[in-house]
């Protein structure tokens, strides 16, 4: 198996049988799947589509009925590969009588970590997931979201190369969800590989490089997010806020250029952004809250070079990819005169306040002034694109380029 594959499934099938050994459910049906080093891979599908069964086979908790499966090039039940894996199950399967620190102590011991190393990592992880203030309370007293946070911390205690997250944002508030998504991106930047299993499509869309969509035990479609989501028959133009008059002029200009069905909509921000802004404002004002505190920085050991340089086993190559990603971000930021749009800004909208002279822009567009280069959407996401990912929404080959040309004349 090539080194770049952390997980590879070939014709993987799982059939659950009844007491009399008759086939009862074909949960996974001859799927081919691979997860490459350094990528965030999304496994999507409705309930009962076979996602969790696939993950459980990857983890060695279920045995395949037929087909082959390899994790780090070895059978999933090989104990040695577990050194490199972090697993967050779909619910918090933790000891209710242990507190957060004891829980992490327990899982740290399973990785042969000495006391000093355990304590250091536990302190950082508790701060990272915002549970350092409630670390002595039994987990049975935690809310569901807090239990997810400690579940995430235990999945990271070994600084894993491969992180398997099964519905990681279940039960989390929008702040926690955002933090998880940010964490996934940071871990990816640090060279980790993430297998993300979810039915919350927006979450997957925000963070994954590639994904597979399952239904009825089969993979129905797989590829990069952009390959899967691009709408071949639609182009969007994003501008700063326009007055009604300018909108009318723009539509008229485009219609006069022969474009039919031109629609102009006011820019909308996502509900998640609004919510986070409100919470951020309240926290700045010093309002108190119960439960989990603010999550801190990503635990240093997860991103420190020397931490995973010392881990034996599979070669740690993805750092190069991460560096390449950083470089891409840098180039995007320096070359783009406007702030990066939200990843899901697929409507003809921009949330930034108007900072340029819109009249000039319209004037340029309508030929009354010199032209300014427009931006096409979808806008580039605010993160590095991995090598296998296609460039952000290139115009389709059969797009009508003459319209743009006309506008820019």
């Amino acid at each position: 198996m090539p080194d770049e594959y952390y997980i590879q499934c070939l014709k993987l099938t799982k059939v659950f049988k009844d007491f009399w050994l008759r086939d009862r459910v074909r949960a996974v049906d001859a799927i081919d799947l691979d997860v490459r080093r350094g990528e965030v891979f999304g496994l999507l599908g409705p309930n009962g589509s076979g996602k969790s069964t696939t993950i459980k086979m990857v983890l060695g908790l279920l045995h395949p009925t037929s087909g082959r499966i390899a994790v780090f090039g070895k059978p999933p039940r090989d104990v040695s590969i577990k050194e490199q894996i972090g697993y967050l199950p779909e619910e918090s399967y933790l000891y209710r009588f242990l507190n957060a620190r004891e829980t992490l102590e327990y899982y740290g011991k399973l990785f042969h970590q000495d006391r000093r190393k355990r304590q250091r990592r536990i302190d950082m992880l508790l701060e990272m997931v915002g549970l350092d203030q409630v670390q002595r309370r039994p987990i049975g007293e935690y809310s569901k979201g807090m239990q997810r946070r400690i579940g995430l911390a235990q999945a990271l205690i070994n600084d894993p190369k491969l992180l398997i997250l099964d519905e990681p944002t279940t039960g989390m508030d929008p702040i926690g969800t955002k933090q998880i998504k940010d964490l996934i991106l940071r871990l990816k930047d640090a060279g980790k590989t993430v297998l993300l299993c979810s039915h919350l499509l927006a979450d997957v869309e925000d963070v994954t490089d590639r994904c597979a969509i399952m239904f009825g035990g089969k993979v129905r479609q797989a590829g990069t997010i952009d390959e899967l989501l691009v709408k071949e028959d639609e182009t969007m133009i994003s501008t700063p806020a326009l007055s009604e008059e300018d909108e009318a002029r723009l539509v008229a200009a485009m219609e006069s250029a022969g474009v039919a069905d031109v629609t102009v909509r006011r820019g909308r921000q996502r509900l998640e952004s609004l919510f986070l802004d409100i919470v951020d404002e309240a926290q700045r004002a010093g309002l108190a809250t119960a439960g989990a505190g603010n999550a801190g920085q990503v635990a240093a050991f997860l991103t420190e070079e020397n931490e995973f340089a010392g881990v034996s086993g599979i070669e740690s190559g993805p750092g190069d990819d991460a560096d390449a990603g950083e470089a891409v971000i840098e180039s995007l930021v320096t070359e783009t005169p406007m702030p990066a749009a939200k990843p899901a800004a697929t409507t003809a909208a921009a949330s930034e306040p108007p900072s340029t002279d819109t009249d000039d822009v319209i004037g340029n567009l309508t030929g009354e002034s010199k032209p300014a280069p427009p931006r096409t959407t979808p806008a580039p996401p605010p993160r590095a694109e991995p090598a296998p990912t296609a460039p952000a929404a290139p115009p389709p080959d059969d797009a009508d380029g003459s319209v743009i040309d006309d506008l820019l004349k």
Partner: protein
Amino acid sequence: MTRKLPVYLGVLAGVLLATGALFGWLAATGHGSAAGAVLLVGNLLVTAWLCWGLWVWRYVPWVGWVTRVLVLTLFAQLTANAAFALDLPGFGRLVIGAWAMGAAFYVGLSLLRLAFVAGHPILGVARTMLDEAIRQKVGLIFVVILVILVPMLPLILADSRLEYRVSNFLRYSLFVTGLLLSIMTILLCARSVSREVESKIAFVTLTKPVARWQYLVGKWVGVMGLNAVLLAVAGVGVYTLTLTVAQQPAQDPLDAAAVKDQVLTARVVLKPDEVDAGQLRREVDAKLERLRQLAPDEYMAQDPLTGERRPIPFEDLPEKLATPLQAEVVSEWLRIGARGSKVYRFSGLDDAESYGPFVQLRLKPKAIGAAPPDKKLQLWFRANGRELPFVAEINGQVREMQMPRIAEDKFAIVRIPTDTISEEGTIDLEVFNGGRGAPAQPDIRFSPVDGMEMLYTTGTFGPNLIKALVVIWVRLMFLAMLGLAAATFLGFPTACLLSGLVFFAAAFSGYLDESLGQYGAFPDDELPWWQQLLGAPAAFIAKLAEGEWYDAFKVVIRTIGEVFRLFVPSLGEYNPVPLVAEGKAVTLDLIGGALLWVGGVWTGALALIGITLFHRRELAQVTV
């Protein structure tokens, strides 16, 4: 904490030194009352300073630990003092016993947690198992029962003789301890694994670098660690309370001596050498000859051609006739007629002299027929030809007196000087049943199990108790693995049922064997087990051919029982409780045998089964 602690300790040392110096100076210069006042004030200051320190740093783990131990100790001391002042010594002793057990538990648990601190999967699982047992209350409930029940036993026991009170306290307290810990061990182990699989907690643990055998061994280590602490707790309680009970007033000086010589001691036990094969055979043949005359149909074979009867030799007798005949002959050997006598040989007394001037003859004569009105029998003894006086230690003085009458069907002790032992290390003991002008009395007999034994002291009570606790701990090793192995493929209720069944069959294996031996026709007991089982179908068919349907059914039941028994160890053979209660030594042979068979072979076999089943199991498999 680190900055302030030296200052704090400095002040403490300063007050202590100043008080000591001032007290010494005042006392030396004859100012007694002033010295007393200084001592009182100094003590108060030190106590207040200590309390303040403990309060300020109560969140520091070791300070909290010390505070709890101190508070527990002070509370127990005050309560016990109050009880003694109010003339309630029983309650006072109960408080002391409970305190000793509580302190042992607390210290033991802390040490165990320290032992499990290293970063290893087995220790990690063991530590969590320990926490589960304590925090999920399963283990705690048993601890509380133990700490309450054992100290209460002395209040319940009401034998008139102190010897029996001490002995029975030991018997019941160790029995209760063993039974409670056995049930707790099975429940904890079965519950932990089955619950973790059902609630999917095991999913997270077993997706870490933990082999499944490490998971099971970790659970086992955790439970056995807890069992070690709890046995230490029980040991401290039993030891303290036994000595407390033994200090109660005895009925008479002989009673007090019996407590010391027959209960709180460790004695080697020897039984009389079995009668030699030749003599046994002669007696069997003589008896068989009489039976042939009484019941020729059963004991004589008839030639089908000539119709002539010929005797069946003992070897060819059916088992149902041969076994009782042999037992009767052995029983006869332990029977002495009125005004008659018999000689019994005891061997293996070579080193008895090195342990003291006397060996003990322990016997329990049972009257056959009507016992004398006072239920006492007059016996005389001769050891290697020398007549034995009755020797007793009364108020520290060894006295010789005429052999007293012995209570019928009760244990009695006769001391035999070790200088009577022959060079070969034997004593030929001649027992006379009455005579010499004593009132008429019936025939007597001794039970082959414990009716007549020779004992000599080789150790003391304390070490003997520790050895007994070790044997109980080894038995728990098997039960812990039994619960774990059952839970690797069964849910909690069924795992408990299976484990409980095996436990009771193992604990009462002797009774089970006896019952099975008398149930249904089955191939000869002396055959190897596999030949017996192979012969079972033939026995079944033979019964069917005879039209004995019910007997055929009994053969099936017996076969099931015999197969089940194959998978159950004989825990009954490794029961140290009666030994300790009767002041008999728990020998290294017994400990070694328990370690080898129960802790090694049986526990190992169960571990192998459990690990294999667990390794092959699909944990996330849902079976409907």
